[in-house]
C-alpha cells in the first residue's frame, strides 16, 4: 500500500513530464517533416513506375526498396500501390512496397535512432526490410492457392 502511494505521481507532474518528453522530440519532428516535403516534391511518382519490369524477385526487392525510402500516411501507399497495379506492376512488388512503406523508415531513421537507440532502430529496419519481401511473397502465393 505504502509502495503504491509512493509510486503515484500528481496529475500536473504527469502532464508536465509528458510535455517535456515531447518537447525533446520537436526539433527532429520538424526536420523530418521538412525532409519529407522535399522528398514529395523532388522525387516524381513517374520515376517509381519506370523501375518495375516484371521479374518476380527483382520487382519484390525493388518494391521493398522503394517502400523503404518512401514515407507518409499508409493510405498514400495503398493508392500508389493500387495505381501501380493498374499499370501492370506485379502484385508481389506492390505488396512489398505497401508493407515496407510503413514498416521500414529510412527517412524516419534519424528520429527513431535518436529516441529509441541506434542499435534498435537499425536492427528493426533491416529485419522489417527482409520481412517485407517474405510477407509479400507469402501473401500473394497464398492468394493464388485459394
Amino acid at each position, binding site marked *: 500500500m505504502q509502495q503504491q502511494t509512493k*509510486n*503515484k*505521481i500528481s*496529475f500536473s*507532474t*504527469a*502532464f508536465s*513530464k*509528458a*510535455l517535456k*518528453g*515531447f518537447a*525533446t*522530440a520537436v*526539433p*527532429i519532428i*520538424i*526536420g*523530418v*517533416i*521538412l*525532409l*519529407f*516535403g*522535399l522528398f*514529395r*516534391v*523532388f522525387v516524381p511518382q513517374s520515376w517509381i513506375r519506370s523501375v518495375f519490369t516484371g521479374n518476380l524477385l527483382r520487382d519484390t526487392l525493388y518494391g521493398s526498396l522503394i517502400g523503404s525510402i518512401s514515407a507518409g500516411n*499508409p*493510405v498514400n501507399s*495503398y*493508392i500508389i*500501390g*493500387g495505381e501501380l*497495379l493498374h499499370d501492370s506492376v506485379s*502484385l508481389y512488388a506492390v*505488396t512489398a512496397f*505497401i*508493407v515496407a512503406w*510503413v*514498416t521500414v*523508415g529510412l527517412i*524516419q531513421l*534519424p*528520429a527513431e535512432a*535518436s*529516441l*529509441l*537507440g541506434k542499435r*534498435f532502430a537499425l*536492427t*528493426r529496419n533491416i*529485419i*522489417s526490410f527482409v*520481412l517485407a519481401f517474405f*510477407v509479400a511473397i*507469402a*501473401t500473394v502465393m*497464398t*492468394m493464388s492457392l485459394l
Partner: protein
Amino acid sequence: MNKQKEKNNHFNLIFPGLVVLGYLGLFFVNPSKTGKALLLSGRMFLTLIPVFIVVILFMGGLNYFLNPQKVKKLFGKESGAKGWFFAVLLGIISHGSIYAWYPLLKDLQAQGMKNGLIAAFLYNRAIKIPHLPVMIYYFGIQFVVLLFIYMVIASIIEGLVIDLMQ
C-alpha cells in the same frame, strides 16, 4: 548516460539544421519547387498538431496511471502473450504520424517495455483500420485479410528476433 543524452541533444539540433541547409541550397537551384516543399511541410505540420495534442494527453495519462511496475508487468520481461497482444493491438489502433509516437515509446522503453514489443507495435502501425475501405477497393478483401494476418505474424517474428539479439 549523460554523455549519450548530450550526444542525442546535439543530434536533435544537427539533423534539422542540415535539412534547413538543404532547403537553402535547393532554393538557389529551384526556388519554386523548394517553396512548394516548404508549403507542403508547413501544411503537414499543421495537420499533425491535433495528433500531437492527443499524443501528449495520452503520454500524460500513461504517466499518471502507469508506473514502472505496471509497465514492466504489461510489457516487460514477464509480460508473455499478453504483452504481445497489447503491443499488436496498440500498434493497430494508434493513429497519426509515427514521429508523434516516438517520445511515448521512448518513455515506455525507459520504464521497462521490451524492445521486441516496441518493434511489434511499430510494425503493426502499417495496419490502419480507418483506411481499410481504400485498400479493399484496390486489392479486394481476400488480399487485405491475408496481408494483415501475415503482417501480425511478421511483427511478432520481428519482435522475437530483436529480443533474442539483445
